[in-house]
């Protein structure tokens, strides 16, 4: 099959993590503006620093961000490669359906001859 189970789990975890609008906004911001400290993210997020840290931890668990420690500060940046399962879904399904269209056309040729 075009979609294997492992890929499906990876994608599911990704969707779960990004389903929270606040968390997704944080991720988008890191995509857009590059590496940020927790403090800088907090200043824009409109929620408390502990809440931001919790969201960043969830993003990190999903592989969507990486952290870098510099002294007492932690910098976070987006890992775009982690989005691959999401993007792969469309190309996998497109391949699957192209193949099924071929089979459908073969069947139509055989029908009512």
């Amino acid at each position, binding site marked *: *099959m075009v*979609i294997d*189970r492992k890929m*499906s*789990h990876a*994608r*599911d975890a990704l*969707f*779960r993590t*990004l*389903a*929270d*609008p606040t968390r*997704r906004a944080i991720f*988008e911001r890191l*995509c*857009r503006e590059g590496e940020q400290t927790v403090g800088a993210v907090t200043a824009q997020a409109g929620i408390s620093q502990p809440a931001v840290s919790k969201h960043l931890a969830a993003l990190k668990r999903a592989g969507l961000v990486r952290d870098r420690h510099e002294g007492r500060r932690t910098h976070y940046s987006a890992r*775009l490669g982690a*989005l691959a399962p*999401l*993007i792969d*879904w*469309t*190309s996998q*399904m*497109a391949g699957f*359906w*192209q193949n*099924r*269209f071929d*089979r*459908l*056309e*073969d*069947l*139509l040729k055989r*029908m*009512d001859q």
Partner: protein
Amino acid sequence: MSESSSETLSVVIEREIPHPPQKIWRALTEPHLIEEWLMKNDFKPIVDHRFNLRADWGVVECRVVAVEPNKTLAYTWGAYDLKSVVTWTLTPTSAGTRLRMEQSGFGPDQPQYYQGAKGGWQRFFSALEQVLARLD
């Protein structure tokens, strides 16, 4: 050929097929014919009918959403945790039929965690497209 619209993740396949819509409709809706090109099934062209598509790798759980003979057929498509809607559209042409299949990734039947953020996904995907465009 695939494309992602601004609202959903979707796959669109469109082909000109040199057969009339009525014949293609049969292949899309008669279980023994569906089995020949898609999968084993217990399909019925009745709205709300629940059916399974079975292959050696697993089962796709489906529910018929729309039936308009020789024109439109739509069903939900649930494999593993990802739900989507498959919509077939048949348009007669001088040479036969333009057959269009669209599979949309985020339909009304999504699990809670997709639904909660429905509005936001649209913005997210357009933002994502911009980010990805920059990577090229």
